[in-house]
């Protein structure tokens, strides 16, 4: 579904990721782990077309999307949930969802406002509230719901657990697991391994902008030294 080859990029001349290569099969999910500053956010932003890649290639469903504008990448079937959530704070919850509305690649419409509210009853209760008044967890649910309204086949999630209480993270894990079983592929960047493993089997660990480890969670559990070296202090 997604093939990333030797992706290199960064901001304003500053290198942030170097030679990143990984791929994702159909309906597969992958976790991108690493300490902050490792290049997870840059990788996702570059995939989404928010940063121009310096070199390397990105293929989605067999077509090259390298260097395309973010709206075209969205229309190709990729949904994006950014790290800071970036919900439209002056809009109501429902309006945020409407702003994300678009048919999927083949004109399919699987997601409606009602279905998103079914997945996240927490925000359904606040449908008319201004999004700026939502709590951290509600904002994250809204950002995910808004991305789902575009009927994506692949969802990019950038550190969804950041700043959230454990029970809320748990709740998000349930929802993401449900999306997985629905057949939506997920690429999740996380520092919270517990959440990441509920969503994905395979993982890539980045360290200072490069791929430092590639494998799956059972492999990682069997080798705590790697985890401490790449993720701990």
């Amino acid at each position, binding site marked *: 579904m997604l093939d990333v080859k030797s992706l290199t990029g960064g901001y304003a001349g500053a290198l942030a990721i170097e030679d990143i290569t990984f791929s994702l099969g159909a309906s597969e999910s992958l976790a991108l782990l690493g300490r902050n500053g490792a290049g997870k956010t840059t990788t996702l932003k570059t995939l*989404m*077309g*928010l940063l121009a890649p310096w070199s390397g290639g990105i293929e989605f469903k067999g077509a090259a999307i390298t260097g395309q*504008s*973010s*709206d075209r*990448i*969205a*229309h190709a079937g990729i949904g*994006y949930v*950014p790290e800071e959530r*970036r919900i*439209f*704070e*002056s*809009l109501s919850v429902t*309006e*945020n969802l*409407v*702003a*994300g*509305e*678009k048919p999927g690649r083949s004109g399919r419409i699987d997601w409606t406002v009602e279905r998103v509210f079914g997945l996240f009853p927490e925000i359904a209760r606040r449908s008319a509230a201004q999004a700026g008044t939502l709590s951290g967890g509600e904002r994250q649910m809204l950002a995910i719901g*808004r*991305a789902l309204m*575009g009927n994506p086949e692949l969802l990019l999630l950038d550190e969804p657990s950041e700043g959230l209480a454990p029970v809320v993270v748990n709740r998000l894990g349930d929802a993401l697991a449900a999306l997985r079983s629905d057949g939506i592929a997920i690429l999740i960047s996380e520092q919270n391994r517990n959440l990441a493993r509920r969503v994905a089997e395979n993982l890539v660990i980045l360290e200072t902008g490069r791929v430092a480890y590639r494998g799956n969670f059972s492999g990682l559990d069997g080798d705590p030294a790697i985890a401490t070296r790449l993720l701990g202090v």
Partner: protein
Amino acid sequence: MGFYVAQFLTGLASASSLFLVAAGLSIIFGVTRIVNFAHGSLFMLGAFIAYSISQKLGFWLAVPLAALSVGAIGWAMERTVLSRLYAAPELFQLVATFGLVLIIQDAALWIWGPTDLLGPRAPGLTGVVRILGQPVPEYDLFLIAVGLMVLGGIWWMFTRTRFGILVRAATEDREMLQALGVRPARLFQVTFFIGAALAGLGGALEMPRQPASLLMDLNIIAEAFVVVVIGGMGSVVGAFLAALLIAQLNAFGILILPEITLVAAFAAMAVVLIIRPYGLLGKPATTQPHAVEIQPPQTLAGYGRIAAIALVAVLVVLPLVADSFVVVLTGDIMIFALFAAGLHFMMGTGGLISFGHAAFFGLGAYAAAIFVRDTGAGMEIALILAPAAAAVGAAIVGWFAIRLSGVYLAMLTLAAAQILWSAGVQWQDVTGGDDGILGIWPAQWASGTTAYYYLTLALASTGIAALMMAAGGRFGHLLRAGRDAPARAQALGIDIDRRRWAAIVISGTAAGLAGGLFAFSKGSVFPDVLAIPNSVDALVMVLLGGLHAPAGPILGASVFALLEDSLSRLSYWRALLGAAVVGIALFAPGGIAGTISAWLTGRRKETA
């Protein structure tokens, strides 16, 4: 009591068209981040087009058709010019819309001629109603209703349609919206159409109240800028409240002292900016784009000093070999080169945009003229007073300006200049109004063509040299540091606010000296010196010469004067100027010096 109610209703009626223009301006800014200086021109076009249509189809069809036509014109403007400038520095976006003002102005002159055109009154609404015994035109009540209906309509669009939701989302976070799959281009086009149509509607509805005239564009845009700055850029409700405030200030201010209405609007803006720098309902911008391109100065390397000495030598010898026409023209060029050099200092080195620099030029000219007229004292003191008066004016404008940046600064300076211009026209006791002030002649010793030429040469070359040295020296480096990377500059200990303020005052002082020299050169002062076209001339000289070349203002003023001398007799000289401005913004942002320097660099690379 009844009288005050009537006056209040008149104010509300005036607020309607002001609101229509300001709302469109604000919506366009919110989505595209472009301040459309040509928005007043769209209002004017609305009035003219409505007049023409009404001659065939009558009033009630003319109004909506004019609004739609103006919407289409706005859409075309976006497609042809502005869509190419979304990634450009703010200065070029502003300058391009300014060029459109000039083009539309001459287009209207060509199509409708120079005379004001009074349209028909609205059939069915020609009478008056008595409210508390006072007559109130039915049409005024209709306008109030339209203003409220449009506000309601915009509210409906913003909350009940997907397009409106997208506009609000884009105003908040355009990049995120694009990542959700919304193509910015289409959103921008529709936004421009709607914003322009609102301005066109405002203009069309003015038909029974005032004739369509070629002055409508700049008058309304200056007021609309005040309104959006007070209301907060991007906020429609803010625009509505501010339009009410300004219209009521006008309606009641005129009862107390007619002249005060001009100052009142500006004072209201000043108060709001001190309390809430982003306007009543505005929000601070999240990202601050660069006002001008960040570039090294294009110097003449080691040849600068030689070139300067050679130029002064030629200018010294000139009166000995040339006829008096050439001497007078050259004297004028030097005055304008000084004016442009001041603006260049502030914009190029400081990154501070002024679209109303004529304010300081005019302050200098009027200060000199009023002093000579009222005291009968000589030119020498007047030529000290001229830059001093401009410096005071610049210090006041600059005090607000350093709180603002980029587009706000451009709007503030334009509004300030427009208000001073109105004062020049209306405050007859002091300025003589349109008749100006006559008989402002140089002192005996400087009165001949050649003598005054040498005086001009001495003062202008000293002024320009001082500006160049300031730009190239410590002050200029620290100012430029604040332009290039404000946070970095502050973290190195540079008080950038104070330095920017000083830059504005220096720039205004140079303009004031130029204005004083100009007054004695012509022997008279008219409100033209304060008018927008004078600001535009200075701006064109700076951009034409090259924003980043120290010699740019001299080059720009010379080329401009020669062009003006040969082309200004053409009827549509302003449109040519406008086209040139748009052309510079689109194709040659470096001006003459920048283009030559880019060409030289290219050649050097080829040969290397």
